[in-house]
């Protein structure tokens, strides 16, 4: 069998056309690949085009130009085949509140053609790993926000995907729940899962991602290993900042400094780039 790149995005352009409004170019030519076992982070301010890029990748949006292939299948020309190997955890909570935790997972498997027996086996295993097994018969409404988020990620693994797309998966999670999720993602990567992750947490990106792509105004402004990016953009000169009045500190530059520099944003006061 020929090995294809798990996820390849080529010259992706997405223009929203709403009648009566000027066309909005949300994504202006984005290209990248994610290899097996690799985690690529998409960083960028709200409205930079991260979610739009992800929705084009999952085949929900049709891109205006460009191509997305998952395991060699074009996600728009052949959505059924392409999405068989794709797991998606959207930014919005879109759990099916009419079902219990377990039934929800099993029903989701049905959309992938997984029969109930196999679906139940996989679901119980995933719920165990995500620490949700004792909640399996509860309705989604009864779960805390963090548990719902974990369930949504667990559900995205029901089809044993080769490519996982996570849109801000840890927003709203407490530190412990976040650790659980990070550990599971690390484990899945070791098994060869290709992960595309968007996040606003720089330490998460530094920790999880082999490479990060910083996206600004619909374009990737830089991409690379987080440490190499910090080195390249910031050098190794310590950053001085006053974190609280009368509390100046000196620290090593981090990914957030790179992000703020490249997206043209600055914290309102106190950030001094050297």
């Amino acid at each position, binding site marked *: 069998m020929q090995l294809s790149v798990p996820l390849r995005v080529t010259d992706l352009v997405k223009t*929203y056309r709403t009648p009566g409004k000027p066309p909005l170019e949300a994504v202006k030519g984005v290209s990248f690949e994610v290899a097996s076992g690799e985690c690529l982070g998409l960083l960028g301010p709200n409205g930079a085009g991260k979610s739009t890029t992800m929705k084009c990748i999952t085949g929900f*949006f049709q891109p205006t130009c460009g191509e997305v292939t998952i395991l060699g299948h074009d996600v728009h020309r052949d959505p059924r085949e392409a999405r068989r190997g794709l797991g998606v955890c*959207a930014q919005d909570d879109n759990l099916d509140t009419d079902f219990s935790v377990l039934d929800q997972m099993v029903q989701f498997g049905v*959309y992938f053609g997984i029969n109930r027996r196999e679906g139940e086996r996989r679901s119980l295993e995933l719920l165990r790993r995500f620490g949700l097994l004792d909640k399996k018969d509860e309705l989604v409404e009864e779960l805390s926000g963090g548990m719902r988020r974990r369930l949504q990620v667990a559900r995205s693994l029901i089809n044993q995907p080769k490519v996982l797309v996570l849109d801000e998966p840890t927003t709203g999670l407490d530190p412990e729940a976040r650790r659980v999720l990070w550990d599971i993602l690390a484990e899945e990567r070791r098994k060869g899962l290709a992960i595309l992750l968007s996040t606003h947490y720089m330490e998460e990106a530094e920790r999880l991602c082999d490479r990060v792509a910083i996206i600004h105004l619909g374009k990737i402004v830089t991409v690379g290993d987080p440490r190499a990016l910090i080195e390249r953009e910031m050098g190794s000169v310590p950053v001085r900042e006053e974190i609280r009045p009368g509390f100046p500190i000196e620290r090593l530059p981090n990914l957030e400094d790179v992000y703020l520099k490249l997206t043209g944003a600055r914290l309102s006061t106190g950030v001094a780039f050297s």
Partner: protein
Amino acid sequence: MHNEVGQFVSLSYRAVYAVWLRYFAVFRKNWFYGLVTTFAEPILFLLSFGLGLGSLIGTLRVGGVSVGYRPFVLAGIVGQTVLIQGFFEASYGGFVRMYYQRIFQAIAVTPVTLSEVLWGETAWGASRATLAASAVLIIGVALGDFSVLGALLLVPACFVFSMIFAALGLLVAARSKTIESISYPQYLLVFPMFLFCGVFFPLSQLPVMVQKAAWLFPLTPVLSLVRTLVLGFPLEIQAPFLVIFWVALLVPLSRRFMIGRLLR
């Protein structure tokens, strides 16, 4: 079958069925709620109009056929059930699934396409309305008011009729900004149909202009066909064509509007 942007993607019946199963699983899980909301309304209407008003009115003569008021209104309730059940499940239910639960969006990134999700939605709405209408048909046959053969033929026909109103409901959900604004088509379109298309009295009781106007709404040909099948009323030849017209218009249009809204 074309996908969201007009590319050719074949429609998978298995995928539509997988979506239909979701609705069925919810219905089965809340079976008591399902039974009450499906059957209470037609039975209450039957008791009130069929037995209450029916005893007052006695026999009607419609288009050369003599018929008791109870069978007449019972046939009307078949049409009314198809309308109300199909419309409400798809409009309010569809809006909740699209806007609050975001279920369409969640399923449409699995191997099931958005088009198939919406086919499943409409097929479910029609299934549920057909189930409710079948309950009325059974009552009609049990009371000796309906022809058995007509009632049997009407079950698949009701599925087609229900598609019209499930699609209408989905279209309304797609075009409504808030869940409250579904009330406008409910009061300005659904209730007038329910009151003036001939559920409770023969259209011939109305002024000719109003009769003609009633034929502009899809419930009128539906009621005409129901009464032809179960009561032996003469076939009004325009009725089957109008039903086909409404199915062919509303089913694709509702899907298109919903897809347009979700991809905006």
